[in-house]
C-alpha cells in the first residue's frame, strides 16, 4: 500500500508540474489573471510531491519490501541499513527521483531568493523550470518507475546493491553530482526567460550568476568525490580514467565554469550577452547529454546502469525539445538594437573571451573524443574503436597550460581599456621563487626531480601568486582585501593546488606488482613493506580474506589492512585497498591473487600529493559556493 502512495504522489507531481509549466505562461501572454497561480507556493508543493515518494522509496528499502521491483533488484536483507539508504539512489530509477528532487530544491531556492522584482519574468523562469521537471517526471513514470511491483508473489530476498557501491563516498557522491547537474536548469530557464522578456544583459546576468556558481560548486564536489571513490575502491590507485561517464560530468563542469566567467563580464560590463545565453543553453544541454550517454548504454563505460535503448531515446527527445525550443527563441529574437560597450585587446573583457574560448573548445574536444566511437561506428558500418586516455591527456595539456597562464594575470587586467603590465616583473619573480621552493621541497621529500613536471609546477605557482598578490599595488588592507575577494581567492588558489597535485602525482608516482609470502618483506621507494599475516573476516554481507601489511621508512611502522571481499548473495569480488595517508603522499596497497597456500600478489603504489588534487577541488567548490551565496544574499 505504501509504495502506491508514492506512485500516486508521483503522478500528481507529473500533473502539477505540467500545469506549472503551462499556466503561468498562459496567464502572462493572455493577460488573463484568472489563469495565474501562486508560483512560490506551487514550488513548495511540488517539492513535497516529490519528497514524499522519495521518502517512501527509502522506507521500502529499509523494511525490505521486495515486492517493489527496484528494491528487490538493488537490496537484500543482509545489506546494512546505511547502504539500504544509499541503494535508494544507487541505480537508475531511484537516482532519477533524487534528480527531480534536486531540481525542485533548486526551484524553491530560486523562487524565494532570486534578486529580481519583475514578477512575470520570475514566473516565466518558474514555468520553464517546471517544463524541465515535468519532462523528467514523465520520463520516470513511463520508462523508469521506481514503484513498479512484483505481484502477487514477491521474491523472498533481493539481489544486491553492487558491492563496489557499498561505500561512504558513494552515498554522497551521486546526490552532490545530481545537485550540480540539475542546478544548471536555473541558468537555462533564466536565459530563456531573459530572451522572452528582452532583459538587459547586466540584469539577467546578475540573476543567473549565483545559481551558476552554486551548481558549479556542487558539480565540482560531486566529481571530486567520484574521483576519490574510484581511487580507493577500484584498487588500482587511479584518480581519473577519462571514462565516458567522467567526461559526461566534466564537460558540463567546463561549460559552467565558462558560463559564470562570462556572466561576470556580462553583469559588470553588459558584454557577451548573446554568448552567455548560448552558453547557458549548452551547459544545461550537456548535463542532459551526459545523462543520455550514461543511461542509454551506447558508450562503453565502467559505470553500469541498467541499460535500455528506450530510455536513451526518451532522454534524447527531452534534450532535443529543450535545445531546439530555446535555440528557436534565440534565432527569432531580435538582438540588433542592443549596444555593447567596446573593449581593448588587453582588457579584462578580452581575458574573459579567451577564458571562454579555451574552456569551450576544450569541452568540445573532449565531447568529440567521447562520442567519436559512435561516429566511427556509424560511418564505418559497425567497426568498433575506443579512444584511449592518452587522447584526452594530449588534448587537455595545451589548454590547461594556456588557461593557467591566463589565470595567473587575468585578475590584474582592467575593464575596457588596455591594461598596464607593470605587475608582470614582480609576479614573475614571485612565482619563480615559489616554483624553486616547491622544487626544493620535492627534492627533499623524494630525492628526485622530474623535468616533465616542471611546466605544470611552474603553472601552479604562477596561478597561486597571481591570485594572492593581486592586491599589493592597491591601498587596501591585505587581509580585508582577501576577505572581500574570498570567493575568487579560494577558487583560484584551489586551482593552483589542484594543478600542483596533478603535476606531482603524475610524475612522482611509483607502482609495482609484487608477490609475497607471510613474513616476507620487499623494498619499495623509500619504504619497506612487510606482509604480516592473513585473516578471515565475516562482514554483515560479505566474507573477506584480509592481509595485514606493514609500511616502514626505517624508523616508523604503520600497519594497513587490505581485503579481498566476496559479497553474498551476488558472489561478486571486490578489493579494499589499504591506504596510509600522509600530507605529502599516500602509501597504497591492494591485494591481488592467491598464488598458492598463503602466497599472495599485491599491487603497491606511492602516490605523492594525491590528496592535494581533492583539496584543490574542495577549495574550488567552497570558493564558488561562497561567490554564489554572497550574490544571493545581495538582494
Amino acid at each position, binding site marked *: 500500500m505504501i509504495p502506491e502512495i508514492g506512485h500516486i504522489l508521483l503522478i500528481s507531481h507529473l500533473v502539477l508540474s505540467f500545469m506549472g509549466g503551462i499556466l503561468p505562461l498562459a496567464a502572462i501572454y493572455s493577460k488573463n489573471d484568472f489563469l495565474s497561480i501562486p508560483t512560490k507556493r506551487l514550488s513548495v508543493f511540488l517539492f513535497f510531491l516529490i519528497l514524499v515518494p522519495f521518502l517512501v522509496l527509502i522506507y521500502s528499502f529499509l523494511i525490505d519490501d521486495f515486492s517493489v521491483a527496484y528494491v528487490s533488484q538493488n537490496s537484500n536483507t543482509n545489506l546494512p541499513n546505511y547502504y539500504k539508504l544509499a541503494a535508494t539512489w544507487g541505480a537508475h530509477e531511484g537516482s532519477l527521483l533524487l534528480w527531480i528532487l534536486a531540481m525542485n530544491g533548486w526551484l524553491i531556492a530560486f523562487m524565494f531568493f532570486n534578486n529580481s522584482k519583475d514578477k512575470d519574468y520570475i514566473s516565466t523562469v518558474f514555468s520553464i523550470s517546471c517544463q524541465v521537471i515535468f519532462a523528467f517526471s514523465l520520463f520516470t513514470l513511463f520508462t523508469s518507475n521506481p514503484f513498479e511491483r512484483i505481484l502477487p508473489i514477491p521474491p523472498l530476498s533481493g539481489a544486491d546493491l553492487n558491492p563496489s557501491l557499498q561505500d561512504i563516498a558513494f552515498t554522497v557522491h551521486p546526490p552532490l553530482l545530481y545537485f550540480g547537474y540539475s542546478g544548471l536548469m536555473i541558468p537555462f530557464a533564466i536565459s530563456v526567460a531573459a530572451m522572452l522578456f528582452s532583459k538587459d544583459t547586466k540584469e539577467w546576468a546578475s540573476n543567473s550568476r549565483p545559481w551558476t556558481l552554486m551548481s558549479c560548486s556542487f558539480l565540482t564536489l560531486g566529481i571530486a568525490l567520484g574521483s576519490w571513490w574510484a581511487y580507493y575502491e*577500484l584498487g*588500482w590507485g587511479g584518480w581519473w580514467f577519462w571514462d565516458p561517464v567522467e567526461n559526461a560530468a566534466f564537460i558540463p563542469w567546463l561549460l559552467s565554469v565558462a558560463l559564470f566567467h562570462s556572466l561576470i563580464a556580462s553583469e559588470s560590463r553588459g558584454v557577451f550577452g548573446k554568448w552567455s545565453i548560448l552558453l547557458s543553453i549548452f551547459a544545461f544541454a550537456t548535463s542532459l547529454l551526459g545523462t543520455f550517454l550514461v543511461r542509454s548504454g551506447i558508450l562503453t563505460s565502467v559505470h553500469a546502469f541498467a541499460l535500455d535503448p528506450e530510455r536513451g531515446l526518451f532522454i534524447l527527445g527531452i534534450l532535443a525539445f529543450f535545445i531546439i525550443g530555446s535555440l528557436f527563441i534565440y534565432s527569432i529574437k531580435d538582438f540588433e538594437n542592443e549596444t555593447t560597450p567596446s573593449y581593448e585587446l588587453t582588457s579584462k573583457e578580452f581575458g574573459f573571451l579567451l577564458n571562454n574560448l579555451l574552456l569551450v573548445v576544450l569541452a568540445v574536444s573532449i565531447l568529440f573524443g567521447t562520442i567519436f566511437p559512435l561516429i566511427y561506428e556509424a560511418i564505418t558500418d559497425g567497426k568498433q574503436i575506443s579512444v584511449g586516455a592518452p587522447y584526452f591527456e594530449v588534448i587537455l595539456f595545451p589548454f590547461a597550460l594556456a588557461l593557467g597562464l591566463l589565470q595567473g594575470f587575468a585578475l590584474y587586467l582592467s575593464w575596457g581599456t588596455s591594461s598596464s603590465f607593470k605587475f608582470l616583473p614582480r609576479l614573475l619573480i614571485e612565482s619563480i621563487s615559489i616554483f624553486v621552493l616547491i622544487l626544493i621541497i620535492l627534492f627533499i621529500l623524494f630525492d628526485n626531480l622530474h623535468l616533465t613536471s616542471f611546466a605544470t609546477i611552474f603553472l601552479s605557482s604562477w596561478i597561486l601568486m597571481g591570485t594572492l598578490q593581486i592586491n599589493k599595488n592597491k591601498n587596501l588592507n591585505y587581509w580585508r582585501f582577501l576577505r572581500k575577494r574570498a570567493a575568487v581567492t579560494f577558487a583560484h588558489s584551489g586551482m593552483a593546488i589542484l594543478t600542483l597535485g596533478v603535476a606531482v602525482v603524475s610524475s612522482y608516482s611509483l607502482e609495482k606488482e609484487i608477490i609475497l609470502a607471510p613474513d616476507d618483506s620487499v623494498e619499495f621507494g623509500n619504504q619497506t613493506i612487510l606482509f604480516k599475516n592473513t585473516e578471515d573476516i565475516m562482514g554483515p554481507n560479505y566474507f573477506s580474506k584480509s592481509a595485514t601489511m606493514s609500511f616502514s621508512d626505517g624508523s616508523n611502522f604503520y600497519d594497513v589492512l587490505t581485503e579481498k571481499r566476496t559479497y553474498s548473495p551476488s558472489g561478486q569480488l571486490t578489493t579494499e585497498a589499504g591506504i596510509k595517508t600522509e600530507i605529502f603522499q599516500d602509501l597504497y596497497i591492494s591485494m591481488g591473487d592467491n598464488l598458492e597456500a598463503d602466497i599472495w600478489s599485491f599491487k603497491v603504489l606511492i602516490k605523492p600529493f594525491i590528496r592535494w588534487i581533492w583539496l584543490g577541488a574542495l577549495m574550488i567548490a567552497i570558493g564558488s559556493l561562497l561567490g554564489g551565496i554572497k550574490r544571493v544574499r545581495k538582494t
Partner: protein
Amino acid sequence: MNPIRKQRLYALIAILIGSLLATWLVVSALSENMNLFYSPTEIKQANLDQGTLIRAGGMVKAGSIIKSKDSLDVSFTVTDYQNDLLIKYKGILPDLFAENAGVVVRGNLTPEGDFLAIEVLAKHDENYMPPEVAKLLDSKK
C-alpha cells in the same frame, strides 16, 4: 577602424586561431590514440601488424585460465564461438574477471599469433557486458 569593429576582429581572430589549433590537436591526438576493436575471428582474417595497439575481446573460455605459481604471468583464451585467441598478460587481473564472462583486452599481437595484453579492462558490475562483446556474441550465437 571603429572600436566595435576592431573588437569583433580581435574576437574573430582569437576564435579562428583557437579552433584551428584545436582541430589540428584533435585530429593528431585521435589518429594516435584510437584503438580498433577486433574479435578473435577478425584477428585471424585481418593481417595485422604485430606492433599495432588494438583491443580484442570475447568470452573467457571455461578452464582456459592458467596462472603461474611464482609470477604474475597469466594466460587465458577468449572466444567468439568461432575462433579462439590466446591472451597473455602479466599483472593482477581485475576482480570481475571470470570464466564465461566477457572481457576486453588492450595490447598487441605476438609473432606466434597470440595476444600480449597490457591492460585487461575491469567493469563495476558482474552483469555488465562491454557493448563490443555483447554485440559480438549476439551476432555469433
